[in-house]
């Protein structure tokens, strides 16, 4: 179990972490999700003892770990680029953590060899023991890095962007494999990612971070269905962001009305996911829109919708929907949201989002 209390860390003038508090139960698989610069990797490095927090407390298995050195923490760390020892064979890489042990914890040579063989078996790399890291593929290197980290029987496994440097197919396979491994070995794991799909698929608990702070902690379903902040909503997938207004428990935007119970009257930020637009709506408040730039991308069709007031919405249709609507450039459809998410406040007060995070905004 690991508990972090109000951890803060500053690099020069840059506030990397700002009072982060988080509690990870034993056996959990936790994702730290956020854009680059959100502090997720810094937090992971502080857990490992590679960086030191300026303030705050870190408790590992009930033990205050504030002054504990990296070498004494007994955590496993898988680096983003694996950091395999380039001059050592795969077997020597995996054995390193066992060979550096001193005193009564030191294993005999035969025990180390047996353990390395077990780990090679576990990560399905039998037969590659004598290879050097440069002779391995990306996926194989990743598994060596994992085996090396597991060799010391860590109380906590930390992974920094574990799938970042792999191609799409290998990434998917490794993801499932890692999930199984985590469950079978009863590990407590924390991994860092900027890929929301990865976080939602792999983790029991997702921690969304932004600008050194935690935006929301919850299960993947909670995070996706009930995002606590506009930032979380936008980070978890493409969204059309609209300005609206709240009046006595109802939000109004572009002629549509949507319930907004409990929110104060005033300006509102309204989000609409591209795949949650009804293209053949018979609702009373359905709006006319022109289809622009339809694009068939395998199983989905992507297009833009131009509202009469000049606003553009991004829309995503399944092939079936596409067949029933048959969108062509310039054709007019009646649209209404299947679901809107409403936050009180104005656009200006929402957290800044970089367009490089894959979020496209169509502002009014």
């Amino acid at each position, binding site marked *: 179990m690991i508990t972090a209390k109000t951890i803060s860390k500053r690099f020069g003038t840059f506030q990397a972490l700002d009072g982060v508090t988080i509690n990870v139960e034993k056996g959990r698989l936790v994702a730290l999700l956020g854009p680059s610069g959100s502090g997720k990797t810094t937090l992971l490095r502080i857990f490992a003892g590679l960086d030191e927090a300026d303030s705050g407390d870190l408790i590992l298995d009930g033990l205050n770990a504030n002054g504990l050195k990296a070498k004494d923490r007994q955590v496993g760390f898988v680096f983003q680029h694996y950091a395999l*020892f380039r001059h050592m064979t795969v077997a020597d890489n995996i054995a390193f953590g066992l060979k550096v042990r001193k005193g009564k914890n030191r294993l005999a040579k035969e025990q180390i060899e047996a353990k390395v063989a077990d780990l090679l078996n576990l990560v399905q790399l039998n037969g590659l023991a004598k290879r050097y890291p440069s002779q391995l593929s990306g996926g194989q290197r990743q598994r060596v890095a994992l085996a090396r980290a597991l060799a010391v029987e860590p109380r906590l496994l930390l992974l920094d962007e574990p799938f970042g440097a792999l191609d799409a197919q290998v990434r998917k396979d490794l993801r499932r494999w890692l999930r199984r491994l985590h469950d079978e070995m009863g590990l407590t794991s924390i991994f860092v990612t900027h890929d929301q799909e990865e976080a939602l698929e792999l983790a029991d608990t997702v921690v969304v971070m932004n600008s050194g702070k935690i935006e929301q902690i919850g299960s993947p379903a909670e995070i996706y269905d009930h995002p606590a902040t506009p930032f979380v909503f936008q980070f978890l997938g493409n969204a059309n962001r609209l300005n609206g207004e709240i009046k006595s428990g109802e939000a109004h935007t572009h002629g549509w009305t949507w319930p907004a119970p409990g929110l104060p009257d005033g300006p509102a930020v309204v989000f609409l996911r591209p795949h949650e637009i009804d293209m053949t709506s018979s609702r009373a408040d359905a709006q006319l829109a022109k289809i622009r730039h339809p694009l068939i991308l395998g199983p989905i069709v992507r297009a833009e919708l131009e509202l009469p007031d000049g606003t553009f919405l991004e829309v995503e249709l399944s092939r079936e929907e596409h067949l029933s609507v048959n969108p062509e450039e310039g054709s007019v459809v009646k649209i209404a949201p299947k679901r809107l998410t409403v936050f009180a406040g104005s656009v200006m007060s929402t957290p800044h989002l970089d367009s490089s995070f894959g979020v496209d905004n169509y502002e009014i």
Partner: protein
Amino acid sequence: MSVSNATREPRWVQITLTLLALLVLALFLVLPLATVIIQALSKGVDRSIATLENQDTLSAIRLTLTVALISVPLNLIFGLSASWAITKFTFPGKSLLVSLIEIPFSVSPVISGLIFVLLFGLRGLFGPWLIDHDMKIIFALPGLVLATVFVTFPFVARELIPLMEEQGRDEEEAALVLGAGGFRAFWSITLPNVRWGLLYGVLLCNARAMGEFGAVSVVSGHVRGLTNTLPLHVEILYNDYDFVGAFTAASILALLALVTLILKTALEWWHRDELASSRH
């Protein structure tokens, strides 16, 4: 392996460029080297051997080897620690340290020698104190070593800094998390990762340490048989019109350089598999 036509030059360009490179190599490297050896043997092998058996020549060889044997290990340690500190840690004054390391390269060797005369000479800053304590630095072995260490200081560091910078700190951090102490991480990760660069640096450093003339000349005092290194001895013999002697001594220097070169090539050949695998 087939080469694509886009990157292949016409045949005549290939041949011309190769010939040009060979010509330059012959003119500026092989010819002078051959001349040195031919001149050394011009009056017969006996005369050359006589020079080698001369006490002054023998003591010059001994002194040169002694100076190199002391200064090269010193610079190995200095260079290694400096590059380690510069590339693996951030601290105030880091960029200043990087530029300081370059100073011996940008300062004329004669000036480097003069610095030590001004510091430790008779009328130098520490001169009186040294006399009081009956210590001699200038015109003695310590001065020669100091000047050589100063002049050859950058070789190891310059070889290692770019290499260590490129390798980053990830592997050391991985070692720390796996339970290794700082020293263990340095010994089993950092050092093996840079050993080839370190070898090149040491070889270059050694070549310069044995061949250094300017700085050593200033602090030596040119006492035959006592403070004359091999390069200084070559000059003295030359000025004495003992051309065979001068070129024989010069051949020894050239030979020492060739031996190190052959040693390096042999090492590379023996470890070619490992060298290939260590390149990502």
